[in-house]
């Protein structure tokens, strides 16, 4: 399988999933699609990392899952943020932007 994009920074996938789910519920494929679109086709989320990540957020209780019917009339599982998930998202975003700024500062200096 040829690499089509750069690797995700480790640990950020969960943050991205939570962020994508923030406006409303979405099924697994749509999450992957959305991340790809929003990143301008740069970040390709492979299924091998998407589903473990989704199981992880389920385990942590940050998202709920329930079965529904998709636009294409398929039975799919919709994920939506829980209050705990929202809190986690805020915390991760704050932490991430802090780290990001720090990295940027170093990169500019160099």
């Amino acid at each position, binding site marked *: 399988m040829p690499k089509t994009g750069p690797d995700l920074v480790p640990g950020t996938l969960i943050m991205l999933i939570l962020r994508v789910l923030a406006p409303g519920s979405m099924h697994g*494929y749509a999450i992957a699609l959305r991340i790809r679109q929003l990143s301008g086709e740069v970040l390709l989320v492979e*299924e*091998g990392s998407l589903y*473990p990540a989704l199981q*992880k957020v389920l385990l942590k209780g940050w998202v709920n899952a329930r079965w529904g019917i998709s636009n294409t009339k*398929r039975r799919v599982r919709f994920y939506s943020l829980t209050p705990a998930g929202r809190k986690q998202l805020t915390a991760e975003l704050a932490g991430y932007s802090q780290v990001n700024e720090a990295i940027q500062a170093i990169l500019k200096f160099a």
Partner: protein
Amino acid sequence: MIELLRRLRYLVDRRRLERELSDEMAAHREMMAEENATANPTFGNQLRLMESALEVWGWCWLDRLFQDLHYGLRLLRRSPGFSLTAVLVLALGIGVNLTAFRLLLLETTPNVRDPDSLVEVARWFPNGMGTTIAYPVLAFYGEHARSFAAVIGAHEDSVAYGGTTSERRAPGSAPDNVTVNFVTATYFAEQSPPLSHGRGLATALDEEPASEPAAVVSQRFWEGRLGSNPAVVGQSLRLNGKPVRVVGVLLNPREHRIDVWMTLSKQPYVVAGSNLLTDWTSSSMHGTARLKPRVSVHAAEEESRALAAALREEHPEAVGKDERLSLTPFSSNRLHPQEVVAAAMAATLVMLILVVACANLGSLLLARGVARDREIRTRLALGASRLRVVRQLLTESTLLALAGSVLAWALSAVALQVYLTRAGDPRDWAVVFDWRVMAGTVVIALLAAMVFGLTPALRLSGSAPRGGRARSIFLAGQVGASCILLMISGQLVRSFGELLQLNPDFDYEKVLTIAPGLRSHGYGDAAAAQYFDALRQRLRSVPGVEGASVTWLPVWGDVYSAFFERGRKVSFNRVDDAFLGTLGLHLSRGRNFASYDRDAMLVSESFARWRWPGEDPIGKRLIVPVAATVVGVVAKAGTFDIQDENSLGVYYPITPQDYRDASIAVRVAGAPGKMAGTLIGVAGSQDATLRPGYDLLRTAYDNAVAQSRRRVDILGLLGLLATTLAAVGLAGLTGYTVSQRTREIGVRMALGAGRARIVRAVIRPLVLPVAFGMASGVLGAGAISSVLRNNLSSLRPADPIAYLTAIALFVVVIGLAVCAPARRAARTQPAEALRHE
């Protein structure tokens, strides 16, 4: 915490959730395929992806365990021969250990209710200890100590027994003595000893001053003195002339010498003039106490220190300065140091059995693993990690070990129940279902699985050339340990077995002794002699009686008499002229004496040899204890000491003064037990006031050898087991080697190799490890037996013949075990062998 709950919920609902994920991924795949039908779908192996996604929940190890168990079970089912052998070998190895462990628990657990909170009470002084205590002092502690739930006091008295009140005894006849244990009623409440009839002594009923004196009798007393009368409860006995009422019979009491139990409050009634209950200074009670729940021995002892000081204020004569109580739990200190050494040795031998079993299985597993080489290689090639393969192999070993231990558990339960039943011990299932035993079983099984499973597993999953060295080590270990076991148990069997081989020089099984107890019934010398003369005549006319002989001391009785001659103890007895004929003793020289012959004596051969070495003993004289001349030599002195065939013995003719204490030995043709009633009747019919007792010589002999016989049996069994295990292991190993090399053997034979050559080729790799194992086994056995000799004085020094016999036996067994499969190999048909794969 909530996360853990979610994990657990997941575990419960696992199947459904897995299916959901699988459905979800399928939908994902479809949608992706629709979107860009031309491009390669990026979805990989779904099973793998699912597994990695589900790993998040942390239950995958469980799946793998089930997988391993499933696979292991299937494999074991597929080779039932191997599985059965393995389980049996393990069951024997573990079972022996388990039984030993349970026996130890049994021996160290006293036969009373909740022994952990029962403590023996002793007095502790800064400069010493006292094991007995005065009753008022004990009662004081019982009343004031908050650590004690109850105190139990016991005091033994020897009391004259005058029969039941319904019996009429001749006036002036002297009664026998019995031992009465005067106890507080708590004795029965706290220890709840098992009763066969009636009830125990109770506080409310029997301690009141106005209550009728009640007695509980021992089973032995009931059988021996009350004729096993089923209507015993309510009978009245005469103790020191005072009537007491029987209320119960104790079954197998812990204190064997006690005949009767009564409440302590009745002690002054039976023993006239006793001030036991009021005297603060006579330390005459054995005290026991029941601790309250959650009170430690130490706390109770500390409390007693304060109480003793307080009591000293009032009764300075009763309590010493700085005195306190010393409390020893019933459940501790039940083994003497000597016994601990013996137990440790037994444990070593028993552990060796397990080592043999494990080494045995280890080499079998290795041999089998080599046959499974292809399977293991395939698994490794398909991406299984080495750890995964090791885990798989260990799971199989553990399965075997658990199956073996279940069987071992059953075996040891049966063995123990048999032991308890034979020992007449009323305990059974309480000991059989003990959590310590359960834990012990599991621990032994897992340990065994590790020992015999780990090495083969590591070896087989590794990339090093297989089998070779590990197998040799297992083989050598197994042979060595078996060798030690066989030799040590052989040596112990020979030592203990001497007692069994001891053949008293006469047919003791047909002889019983009757003691009428004439002296206590007021007989004089003349009357007693007359009685015995008549009895001897009447007994001889009873059909089935082959001989009767009057003896001063009963043969193999509780009493014996001896004098010292040049520093050695010489037993003696005075007997009538029918003694040799009745007992069936043989004269090796000289002649018998006549009764009342003042100057004659018979000596044992051992005595003659020791006293007059190389000389003719006939005509020699001794002046101690009475002057007499040797007229004959008896082959052995077997009537004196059952346990020592070299004991020195002398017989003198009976004198007229001996009859008041005499008893009569009777030889019968049939079973003496059946004749006893008739013979007792004959002895009693001459004088209605007499109540003669009898003893079978067989009983005395059996009691003396029973202990040793049990030991010999057990040790013999251990040795046999070790040899069997070694043989089974070696036969199995050689068998595997042969079956593995069938093809090679076929090729060799096709190329013209002779049978002898094939046998040699099969046996050769085994020779070195077996030889090494035997050498180290012989050395190890020598070392162990020298340790044993230092601790067990009865052990004979190792004799080379016993050693060589053991080694020879071992070599023969091993040879057979190895040669059978090798011979089978030699009979292989080349064409068949080449088609074998």
